[in-house]
């Protein structure tokens, strides 16, 4: 399943800019009586966000792509801040805010970005730039079939656009921006298009979501982030620090099979989901065991389908885990050894899989030695070299993919905290004879097992032999390569100069 996020490439920003202010329009689209906002229609708190961003090149990590322009939507909330999607402002070099019907461009900065939940908080460099704007208030999770209105600056025009639709369903969905997180999301048939990202979804005068993504192949369907996830983000950053969405490190399976239920001593009453897998070292592994049965989480009864009833919906039992803040304890009722028991799991934010998800706002790590460019194996790197979406599996990239996405779960002892790839070679006489030219997983250098990029530098720096010996990962022992140590050291600075590289590492 592929999801797309909806910011729009900012090709016509100048045209947008000169569109100028005009009298406030009566949209008539917002549902219900607008008593509290009669004097200040909610759209007045909605802003267009114009972003110039620059992404790094992951297989030449000292370089960046050309500056790209894009736009999204945001809205003013309590505290003089603007809420939007993290993907709208990812890698931003400059952020400009355009208030409703206002000709000025207001410079802003990112205060917090929660890439896991695809939410970000901005503030204008000069707080006075939001003077007179009435902050929007959040409502509750809207009911399925109820009507919502989206508001934002999608492609197809320069002025604010409103679309109306119904809430189609509410469930846990993959979030495209991080790539490896699935959180509660609301599907609607209100049109959500590129440029809508970060815009409010209204029910009455309350914000009940933040528009964020669509799904190719699914017609008349857009997704918005529900108030639960937004509130979690805002509470998280209230202490001035972003911790993130906690991950318990447990996977549950449905428990319908009569023999399995009998084996575990459970009545055939539709209660409970089975603990199938636990991440070694994860918070859940400290209190749960495989084949424990989760009967309730955070007070929500868990069904045999692995779901909980939640505000008129059935959503995955992972939701109460995700809506707990890092550091808080989540009460669980489990069935173990034929009896119910209550336990608590202390939730922790987890970034052990950050390389497997798409990273933002953190420049890629690398080190270069004698023209050999080493960087972290990451989803960003695989995206860059075009491994994802290849039309066939061949051993080289299958090994990269497996190492990144499967090995940590399959064999945690063999997995490396930061797998390192030889991303490429900057050609020079000193490295011209190497047969391995890049996209190869590094196993050892001079006998040092490479767990992270720092090991690469150490392995080269500490070696005193005549040649540096590099071993790559293969089915058993992979290919070997070598470079002359003294020639490599002598050529290193020249190579950096030749290829205009300021620093030989970023660690």
């Amino acid at each position: 399943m592929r999801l797309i996020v909806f910011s729009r490439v900012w090709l016509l920003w100048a045209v947008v800019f000169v569109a100028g202010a005009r009298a406030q329009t009566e949209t008539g689209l917002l549902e219900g009586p607008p008593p509290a906002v009669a004097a200040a229609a909610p759209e007045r708190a909605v802003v267009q966000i114009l972003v110039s961003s620059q992404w790094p090149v992951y297989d030449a990590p000292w370089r960046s792509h050309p500056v790209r322009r894009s736009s999204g939507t945001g809205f003013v909330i309590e505290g003089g801040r603007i809420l939007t999607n993290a993907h709208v402002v990812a890698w931003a070099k400059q952020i400009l805010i355009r208030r409703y019907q206002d000709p000025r461009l207001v410079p802003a900065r990112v205060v917090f970005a929660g890439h896991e939940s695809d939410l970000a908080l901005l503030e204008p460099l000069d707080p006075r730039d939001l003077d007179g704007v009435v902050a929007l208030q959040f409502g509750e999770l809207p009911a399925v079939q109820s009507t919502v209105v989206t508001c934002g600056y999608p492609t197809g025009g320069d002025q604010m656009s409103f679309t109306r639709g119904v809430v189609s369903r509410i469930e846990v969905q993959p979030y495209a921006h991080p790539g490896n997180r699935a959180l509660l999301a609301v599907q609607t048939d209100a049109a959500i298009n590129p440029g809508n990202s970060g815009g409010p979804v209204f029910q009455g005068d309350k914000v009940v979501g933040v528009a964020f993504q669509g799904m190719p192949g699914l017609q008349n369907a857009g997704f918005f982030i529900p108030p639960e996830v937004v509130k979690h983000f805002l509470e998280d950053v209230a202490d001035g620090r972003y911790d993130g969405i906690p991950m318990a490190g447990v996977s549950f399976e449905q428990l319908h099979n009569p023999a399995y239920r009998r084996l575990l001593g459970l009545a055939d009453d539709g209660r409970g989901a089975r603990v199938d897998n636990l991440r070694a070292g994860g918070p859940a592994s400290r209190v749960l065991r495989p084949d424990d049965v989760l009967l309730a989480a955070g007070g929500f009864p868990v069904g045999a389908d692995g779901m909980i009833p939640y505000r008129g919906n059935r959503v995955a039992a992972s939701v109460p885990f995700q809506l707990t803040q890092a550091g808080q304890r989540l009460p669980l009722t489990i069935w173990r050894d034929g009896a119910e028991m209550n336990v608590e799991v202390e939730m922790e934010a987890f970034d052990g899989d950050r390389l497997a998800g798409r990273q933002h706002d953190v420049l890629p790590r690398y080190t270069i030695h004698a023209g050999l460019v080493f960087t972290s194996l990451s989803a960003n790197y695989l995206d860059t070299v075009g491994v994802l979406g290849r039309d066939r599996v061949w051993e080289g990239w299958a090994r990269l993919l497996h190492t990144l996405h499967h090995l940590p779960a399959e064999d945690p002892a063999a997995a490396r905290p930061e797998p390192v790839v030889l991303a490429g070679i900057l050609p020079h006489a000193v490295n011209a004879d190497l047969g391995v030219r890049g996209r190869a997983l590094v196993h050892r250098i001079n006998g040092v097992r490479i767990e992270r990029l720092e090991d690469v530098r150490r392995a080269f720096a500490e070696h005193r032999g005549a040649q540096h010996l590099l071993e790559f990962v293969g089915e058993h022992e992979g290919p070997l390569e070598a470079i002359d140590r003294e020639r490599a050291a002598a050529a290193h600075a020249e190579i950096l100069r030749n290829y205009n590289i300021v620093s030989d590492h970023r660690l």
Partner: protein
Amino acid sequence: MPKSFLLRLVFSVLALGLVAPATPSAQAQLLARPNWERSLVTIEVTFKLHDAFQPWNEPARAIRKHGVVIGPGEVLTTAQYLPTHTLVRLQKGGRGRWHDARVKWWDAQSNLALLETDDAAFWEGLVPATLARNVSRGPDFELVRWRDGNLETRRVEFGKFTVSEGALGFAPHVQLEVSTDLGGLGWTELIVRDGAIAGLTTYSSGRVCGALPAGFIRRVLDAQRAGAFEGLGYFDFTWQPGSNPYLLKALGLEGQPRGAVVHAPGREKDPARAPQPRDIILEVGGFPIDVEGDYLDPDYGHLMLENLANRAQFAGGRLPIKVWREGREVTLDYVVPRADFANERVPREMFAGPPQYLVAGGLVFQPLSQPFLRGWGEEWRKFAPFRLQFAQFERGRDERPSLVVLSGVLPDPINLGYQDAMMLIVDQVNGRRIATLADLAEALRAPAEGGVHRVEFMPGRSLQRLVLDAAGLEEATRRVVEFYGLPAAERL
């Protein structure tokens, strides 16, 4: 002048014009040119396909290819499509009657087969063709095939000799590549030169058509007829070119750069008998190995060293390999291992019998094999589940030589809740490690504690385990077999 005389004169001049310019050597060639229509025959093979999702189904398909009479009562062809054949028929002259035939012998790795028929009428008028002793490089060959009932002979250009895996097997051996604009090749057409067979085509891709060279065919057939053919051999260790002089230095090689570097061992662990990681292969069978990993073949020129696994011997033959190891030359008494599909953890082919499966309480188990993965169609490398495909490249062959996969579930009350369980590699059943369906069948004879069968899958991100009621399993399996119309609950 009578008109008829003039016409006769014109025809005579035209006729003279056709034959008069022929040089003596060309005349000799014409005289030597065999009647390929009396040797080249058409073969119709009906064969079974592997239905990966319902392995008890065996849909059949028929194809036509070529064969050539090479001896009394013997038709030579490639082995492609024959391992699972249900019916083989022969036709001569490119048209007319079909004659029932038998497969006398086939070998997947060499991709060769011999057919025979008791139908005496088939052999009437047919004459054996000659396999060339050796096939030298360029310039041109002719390609001969039956096309719409007519014999077609077209010039093709010599491309190169190369070493690669066969169309059916994984043992690398020498292949002849020719260039041509002709389409629809690879159906055992003849590549001929100087009146003899130079090769049999096995594949075509774009303008390139590959063929088994006659010298290779002749050696395999001679060994087979002498009862001395144990199958093709292969080098099961992994090597890389020694083209990086600093690597050779790092491994201590003295003198001029030469040889190929071993980086993964084969099954033979005895260092006196087999190359070890970081050995540099200097010679194989007396042929020096260059830094590309090639040797100079007296017949074919520079070829990859892999060809030496079958050049002077086949599987089981002794082959001295000289390596550089720890600062000195060592000659290894290497025995060439047999290229056997069973050596692969995910076998490329499963020709030993019909597709295996085992259905237990509606859970369908199959060996993980490439024929199974090919069930995802022509683009199976794109669409088959990644985790199953990756098993082909995975370590651990020594600990678990083969794998069993839960390929799907035929819904039944006993497997309620497991309907979506599929494409999972089985680790253990009732505490017993599973490598084959026979292991699985054995494990199911001894239920786990609690009166259940406990099926555990390989550690990972997907479902880890499920259990089935042991007491009701036999009855449920019977029910599933009947309800879904299976011929049997298992075929091991």
